[in-house]
């Protein structure tokens, strides 16, 4: 920005601070909700083209995902892995690192937990077993991300590609582990030995929601505080904003890159581990919920803001849970949610672009 334009900005008519605040809040709300609205509208048009009534579909989704007690509990339960994965992505994205290998990291942690838990519960109390499972699974996920991290830190190889490749590799490897190594010999369909319901994460009060939701909420708040209020978080943000400047500021960028990757993958691994300890208790062969890429737009919508992510995760969990039952009842396949996610990302980028254009025009 040049000196001339600075003075021009100063000489502009000063506005009362309250109206400015209202305006900026309104703009922020618009920036967030306009993409959501546009995505729902265009998504609705697609439903219409398929010969379905979009209002019926959205109404059904809201009903099943939010307004029915059982559905709402399922929604809260679904929020747990989404929140933890979002936490992992926030760490990476704020540091300017594209960890897109979430699916592989998630599944490997899930399989390790599913293999360890039934064995460990024989020899130790539940709380200790849960801690052991989580620690080992998180370490495995972090280790799985080491190769992309090293390639990025040492040779500057694009981490999008390497983390995706490791993800495909991880998904197949998790299947190999389920089918060949940890298979429960007593079942016909290949799966790991079942962890009894009594030994899983405790349920909250009289609901079906497990304690993982508390862990997830605490983790996302902690991650937010770490990224915005600690020197480590600030260092990561500098690396993300301008790696070259970070080098000149004396930061060890290679080391920070590796640490970011480990932390990000570790959090995603935590999501996998808790999903098994809280909900499934076992991993079946070929099970892959594929949350990895769909969490990306949520994190973007929240502008990498940890607390803001909670709201969007709730929104998306409602869509998923409602969509799953709509696919059985209304005959709209589950894949429709993928289209909606893509539309969200698209309109998010478009609205951002228009916003910048508008601000530039205001400034001139």
């Amino acid at each position, binding site marked *: 920005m040049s000196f001339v334009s600075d003075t021009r900005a100063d000489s502009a008519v000063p506005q009362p601070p309250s109206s400015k605040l209202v305006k900026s809040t309104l703009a922020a709300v618009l920036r967030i909700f306009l993409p959501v609205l546009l995505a729902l509208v265009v998504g609705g048009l697609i439903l219409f083209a398929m010969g379905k009534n979009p209002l019926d579909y959205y109404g059904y989704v809201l009903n099943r995902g939010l307004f029915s007690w059982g559905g709402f509990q399922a929604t809260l339960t679904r929020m747990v892995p989404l929140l933890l994965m979002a936490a992992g992505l926030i760490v990476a994205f704020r540091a300017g690192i594209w960890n897109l290998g979430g699916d592989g990291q998630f599944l490997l942690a899930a399989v390790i937990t599913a293999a360890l838990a039934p064995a460990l519960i024989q020899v130790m109390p539940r709380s200790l077993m849960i801690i052991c499972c989580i620690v080992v699974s998180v370490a495995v996920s972090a280790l799985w991300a080491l190769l992309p991290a090293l390639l990025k830190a040492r040779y500057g*190889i694009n981490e999008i590609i390497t983390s995706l490749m490791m993800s495909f590799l991880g998904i197949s490897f998790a*299947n190999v582990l389920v089918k060949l190594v940890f298979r429960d010999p007593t079942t016909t369909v290949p799966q790991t030995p079942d962890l009894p319901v009594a030994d899983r994460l405790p349920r909250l009060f009289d609901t079906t929601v497990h304690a993982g939701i508390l862990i997830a909420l605490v983790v996302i708040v902690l991650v937010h505080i770490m990224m915005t209020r600690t020197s480590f978080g600030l260092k990561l943000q500098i690396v993300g904003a301008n790696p070259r400047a970070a080098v000149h500021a004396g930061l060890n960028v290679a080391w920070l890159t590796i640490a970011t990757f480990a932390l990000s993958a570790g959090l995603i691994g935590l999501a996998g581990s808790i999903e098994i300890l809280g909900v499934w208790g076992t991993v079946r062969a070929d099970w892959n919920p594929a949350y990895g890429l769909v969490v990306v737009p949520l994190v973007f919508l929240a502008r990498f803001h940890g607390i803001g992510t909670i709201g969007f995760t709730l929104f998306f969990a409602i869509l998923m849970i409602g969509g799953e039952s709509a696919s059985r009842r209304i005959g709209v396949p589950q*894949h429709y949610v993928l289209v909606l996610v893509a539309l969200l990302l698209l309109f998010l*980028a*478009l609205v951002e672009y228009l916003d910048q254009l508008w601000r530039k025009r205001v400034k001139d």
Partner: protein
Amino acid sequence: MDVLLTQSFLTSLIFGAVTAGIPLLLAGLGEQISEKAGVLNIGIEGMMLFGAYCGFVAAYYTGSFWLGYLFGGLGGMVVAALVALLCIRLGLNQIVIGIALTIGFEGLTALLHYVQFSRTYPRLSPVPTLAIPGLSDIPVLGQALFNHNALVYLAVLLTFFLAWLFRNSFIGLNLESAGNKPAALDAAGVSVLATRSAAVLATGFLAGIGGAYMANVGAGLFVPFMTNGAGFIGIVLAMLARGRPVWVLLGAALFGISLAMTTALQVAGINIPTDVVQMLPFAMVMLVLVIFARHSVLPPALGLPYVRGER
């Protein structure tokens, strides 16, 4: 172990490698054109998938494989046009849009397939092959290499044509400068945006044909999510080839072999879970990246939108 060396095993392995490698070759060549021009095309997976869907539907209703390829290529170009509009015209983040297009066309093709065929997966008739006289009579290799659908030979010829084009024509020069120093191209009076848009459309066309080949020839049917990372392998090929098409061909052959292992081992009667074999191509990618990491080169302006007059 001697069963591995029987004629039928080798023939089916190499034949399968060519069939599996051609989509990778086309995707890799396409991505190479984009990357040369400075566009990182993460959406190539979506282009392949939409190409596969369009190509399959066209071939299914017309019965013509050539129309299948044509519509596959056009389908890929539709996705590419979105990239050109959003990333090149408007300068939106190429990675965000790339992810959006990949996820979106995964979902959209699955929806379209569901609307059209419900839960059935109709098959196409076997693909016509063109046996090259003389060469196809060579034992083992002849049937494996020289008795394919005509598109295979065209794709290989395209590799050498692109090598010539990149090196010896002004088009190659324009592409190169759009990726290395877009301002210079602009100063020379050539539109950076038009050059990049053309490059991305070419990518979409090739990736779409690759997808159509995968569906119509490789599988004989369309299954949602069937590309399963082939587009991303194409990106790796382009990265490692450092702008040289012949290296994409070699890479595609390498990954084709590892993809073909699954069926070939089953022919040989060796039964290991498909998951183990499915790991092969991706493990190969990582191995190749680790070994040749320092040699992969990308243009400096890759992924950056071009705005005239901006530093």
